[in-house]
C-alpha cells in the first residue's frame, strides 16, 4: 500500500563539530516517524546538496554554531535552486542573531530554530509544513 514518509537530511555545514543538537534531533525525527539521513559534521554546501538530491528528501535541516551560517545556509539554498531542487525545503538551526534572520529568509530558508526551541515545536513545524512530495 502506498506509504509516503517524510524524508529529512540533517547536516552540519562548515567546520564546527558541535553536533549535540544535530544528534539529538536525528533521534527525535526518527521517533517522530520520519526517515532521517544524518550526514555528520564538516560538510560543504556542495556535499549537502548532492546528498539531498540523491536521497530525494523533503527537507534539509542545517545546524551551525560557528557563526558561518551567513555564508553556508544561503549557499545550500542557492545550489538547490540551481540544480532544479528548489522544492526541497531548507531550514536552519543554531546561534542565529536576530539581524541575520531576514537575510536568511530572503535567501530561501523557510524556518530558523534558535537556542531554546523545543524538540516538539520543531517536529510540529515539520508536520505542519512538510508534506511528502508526490
Amino acid at each position, binding site marked *: 500500500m502506498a506509504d509516503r514518509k517524510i524524508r529529512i537530511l540533517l547536516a552540519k555545514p*562548515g*567546520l564546527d563539530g*558541535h553536533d*549535540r543538537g544535530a544528534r539529538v534531533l536525528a533521534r527525535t525525527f526518527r521517533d517522530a516517524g520520519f526517515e532521517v539521513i544524518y550526514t555528520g559534521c564538516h560538510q560543504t554546501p556542495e556535499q549537502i546538496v548532492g546528498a539531498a538530491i540523491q536521497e530525494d528528501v523533503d527537507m534539509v535541516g542545517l545546524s551551525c554554531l560557528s*557563526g*558561518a551560517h551567513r555564508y553556508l545556509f544561503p549557499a545550500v539554498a542557492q545550489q538547490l535552486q540551481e540544480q532544479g531542487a528548489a522544492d526541497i525545503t531548507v531550514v536552519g538551526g543554531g546561534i542565529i*542573531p536576530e539581524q541575520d534572520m531576514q537575510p536568511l529568509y530572503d535567501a530561501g530558508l523557510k524556518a530558523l530554530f534558535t*537556542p531554546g526551541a*523545543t524538540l516538539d515545536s520543531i517536529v510540529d513545524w515539520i508536520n505542519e509544513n512538510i508534506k511528502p512530495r508526490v
Partner: protein
Amino acid sequence: MFTEELLDKSSTMRKKWEDEVKKTVAKHADQKEKWTTVSDLEIKRLYGPEDIKNMDFEKDIGYPGQYPYLRGNQVTGYRGKYWTFRMFAGMGSAEETNNRWHYLLNSGQTGLSTAFDFPTLMGYDTDSPKARGECGKCGVAIDTIDDFFALIKGIPLANITTSMTINPPATALWAMYCAAAEIQGIPLTQIGGTIQNDMLKEFIAQKTLMCPPEPSVKLISDTVEFGTKYVPRWNTISISGYHIREAGATAVQELAFTLRDGMEYVEDVIKRKGLHVDEFAPRLSFFFNSHIDFFEEIAKLRAARRIWAKAMRERYGSTDERSWWMRFHTQTAGCSLTAQQPYNNVIRTATEALAAVLGGTQSLHTNSLDEVLCLPSDHAVQIALRTQQIIAEETGVINTIDPLAGSYFVEALTNEMEEKAWDYIHKIDDMGGMVKAIEKGFPQMEISDAAYKYQRQIDSGEKVMIGINKYNTDEDVEIPFLEIDDSVEKEQIDRLNAVRRKRDSRKVRECLDDIRTACKKGENVMPYCIEAVKSYCSVQEICDVYREVYGEYRDPGMY
C-alpha cells in the same frame, strides 16, 4: 570513620526522624517524588554518618597537599595564591585578539587563553574551500607565524603563561610559540603555558578531526616527549572533560571518560617513548566543566583528584608526588546558559564558578552572559571576570581550605561519583583501552543517550531551565552584539598570499619533506615543525603532511 556507639545512636535517631518524615509526607506530599541532579543521579533526602562510615580518614580524606589530594594540591589553599583568572579570548584578526588580550591583562587577568577560529582548529588555511565563511568567527585566524607575531605583540612571553585551545594542529601552533620565543631570545626553558592537544575527547565529543585516533595519539606523545626534554614549564596536554560534558555527557561520564583519556596518554607515552611516568606526568593538566548542579560539580572535582592520585600511584607505580597532583582548569558550562532572559546567565555562571572554587580548581574561565548568542562583548567579559574576583575577594569562601570536607552529603556524593567513574574506567579497560572504545563508538553512544534523555526531560518539564520551560517571558532583551565583519576573511587571505609571495618556497618544501620523513620514520616531529614555521610554512601545509601520511579521519557519525 565513626565509633560503633555513635553509629548505633545515629541509627536510633534516624529511625525516629524517618517516622516523622513519613507522617509529614502523608499530610503534605513532597513537591515531586524523585530528586535528582542535573545528570539524573538520585539524591537522598538526608545524609548522615552511616553514609560515609566506610571511609578511611587516612586513605580517603587526608590533608591538603597530601595523598590522595581530595582536599587539594596546595598546602596553603587559596591563601597563598588565588586560582588563575583565565578568560578564553580570540576573535577576528590577530591584531583584534591582541587588543583584547591587552584589555584583559589591564583588567587584572593573570593568564592568557587563546580561542582559534575553525579553519585554524581544523588545520586549514583561510583560503581553503572548506574554510569559507568561517574566518575569525569563533576565534582568531592563524595561518603562518606572521599572524602569530601579530597575536603576541607586546606580550611578555617570559613572564606570562598562555593557554592555546588547539588540538589537531597543536604541533604547528606550539611550534610557532616556541619559534617566536627563540626569535625573541627567550630560552624554551623559560616559557610556560598549555596546549589543549587532547584528541581523544575530539573523537568522543567535539569532532575537531584530522587523522585517525592511533596516529593522533602518536603526535601527542611527540609533544609530551619534546616538552619533557626541552620545554619543562609547558603543559603539553590539557585532558579535557569540558567538551565531553557540553556534548551531553553526565557528570560521571565526564569524570570517567576524561580520566580514562588521561590514562591512555600516560600509557602511550610510557610505551612509545620509553619515558618513566614521573618524567612527564607532573606536566599533565586537566580541564573540567562546571555545570549548574552545585554539589555534583564539587563532588566531581574532588573525586577527580582522588582518582588520579590513586591511578598514578597504583596503576602506574609513580613515586613522585608531583605526578599524583591533578591540576586542572575549569570553565563554567556553556550548555547551561539560555538565550532567553540572558541576564539570568550571570547568576548561573556565578553559581558554577563558586562550585569550581569549592572543588579546588587552579584556574577558571567564567562564561559571559551573551555567549549563547554571540562572541562576548567587552562589557559582558568584564562582568564574568568580576564574578571570579567577587568570589575570591568578597565572599570569604576561600578563607579556609576545602570547607565542605566532612560533610556527610558531599563526601558520600564524592564517593559515589568515584565509584561510578571506576566502573566506566574498568569497562573501557576491558574493551582494550580508550582508542578501542572510541572505535567501537562506546563513549559516543553513552553521551548521545544521555543528551537525548536530558533534552526529553527538558521538553517534558521534568528538568527545569528557567526561561526555556518555566517562567518564560516574551520580553526582548537588547544585548549589545559583537560581530565579526566578513571583510576579515578577505584581509586574512590577502595577508596569507603576501606571506606566500615573500617566503623562500624551496625552503618551505624542504621543511615539509623533513616533517613527512619524520612521520614515516616515527621520529618526533616537533623539531621539524619549529623549523617549518620559522620558514613560514602554514598550518594547513603542515597538517596536510599528516593527513597524507596518516590518512584523514572522517566523523563516523555515531548517534
